[in-house]
């Protein structure tokens, strides 16, 4: 579920940039991308532990 939310958030970010609502820059993409990957790995690790 966390992975789905993370991928969905990245997709929405891309869509907002494509329609011109948001100006996507590396200073935004970097933290968002890292947060998405971190959340996915964290959730995956915690799931395995359980």
């Amino acid at each position, binding site marked *: *579920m966390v*992975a*789905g*939310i*993370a*991928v*969905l*958030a*990245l*997709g*929405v*970010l*891309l*869509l907002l*940039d*494509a*329609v011109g609502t948001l100006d*996507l*820059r*590396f*200073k*935004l*993409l970097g933290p968002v*991308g890292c947060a*998405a*990957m971190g959340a*996915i*790995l964290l959730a*995956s690790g915690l799931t*395995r532990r359980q």
Partner: protein
Amino acid sequence: MTTDDTTQQLPPESPQPRRLLRARSGRVIGGVCAGLGRYFNVDPIIFRIGAIVLAFVGGAGLLAYLAALLLIPSDDSPAAAEPSRNRWLAIVGVVVLLCVTWPFLLGGGLVLAAILVPLALLVATGVLVWWFVSGEGPGADAGDIAKRAALGIGIICLCGLIAIGGAWAAAAGGETVVAIIVIAAGVAILVGAFVRPVRFLVLPAIALALSAGAVSAAGIDLDGGVGERDYRPASVSDMRDTYELGMGELIVDLRQTELPAGDVPVRIDLGIGEARLVVPEDVCVATDARVGIGEARTFERHSDGVDVDVDELRDAPPDTTRLLVEADVGIGSLRIGHGSTNLDLDHGQIDFGRPLQDDLGRNLACDA
């Protein structure tokens, strides 16, 4: 004293230690590998393959074979019966060989490390990726590890292809389509969490989203083609609204252009590569530029890195031309100046009269 007494007084015969000897029978060259096979009771072909492989890696196998040839006696030689004979001669020979061949051995070790270390990292990454995707951790069996590493590496390759495709699509103007695909994948993963997990979608979706996002963040637009473009307009009417290039080298030289007093807009749009704008010395330049990844040099100012913004809105005296430069470079460099050795490459001819430095001049025509 009887014969039986003599036999009883002799010390018990100690077992003869196994000796490593070069084999006369079954030898290919000197019998070293055959002897090793006999000594360790394994097929000598294993030692032969190892020696050949090591011979190609800096010559270590060759050296080891020669050393063994010198040190290990043959099973049909008198030295087999007298182990110490010629031992010193053999040791000296090995030392001389080492002195001669150590650079090759060192090179071989580096070559071996350069091959094995990335290979080990690749295998470890493959196993970790497969672990993430399937939930199956690394097993103890070597074959099992190899199989999972291969599957993981396959997934990495697939994600790489997806990332390249996504980046290309986003650069070609299909960012909306990529965004919709990523959103659809996200919804599928989200729904799958409650119905049936689709973990295999996560990595490809992330690869697609991040590659397209990086292209968008850099502002890469491949419209305008690929190659070299050199524009030297004669007058303002010859100037384009936008000088555009997808990938390559874009030069806009305005030094011979008749420019009127007042504001003259110039727009440069480059995806990947180098953009150069050369302006006359009596023209004031106001720059609003963005470079996704790379450097921007505008006269004496230099900025580089990620998300480079140049905002130099300068005013000009009433009777002076002011170029309003708006530039967008995805990955690469933007150079704006009056000219230098680098910029004066006129039809491949370097202006050797100028100093050999990247001097773009100063923006002196603007108001102080």
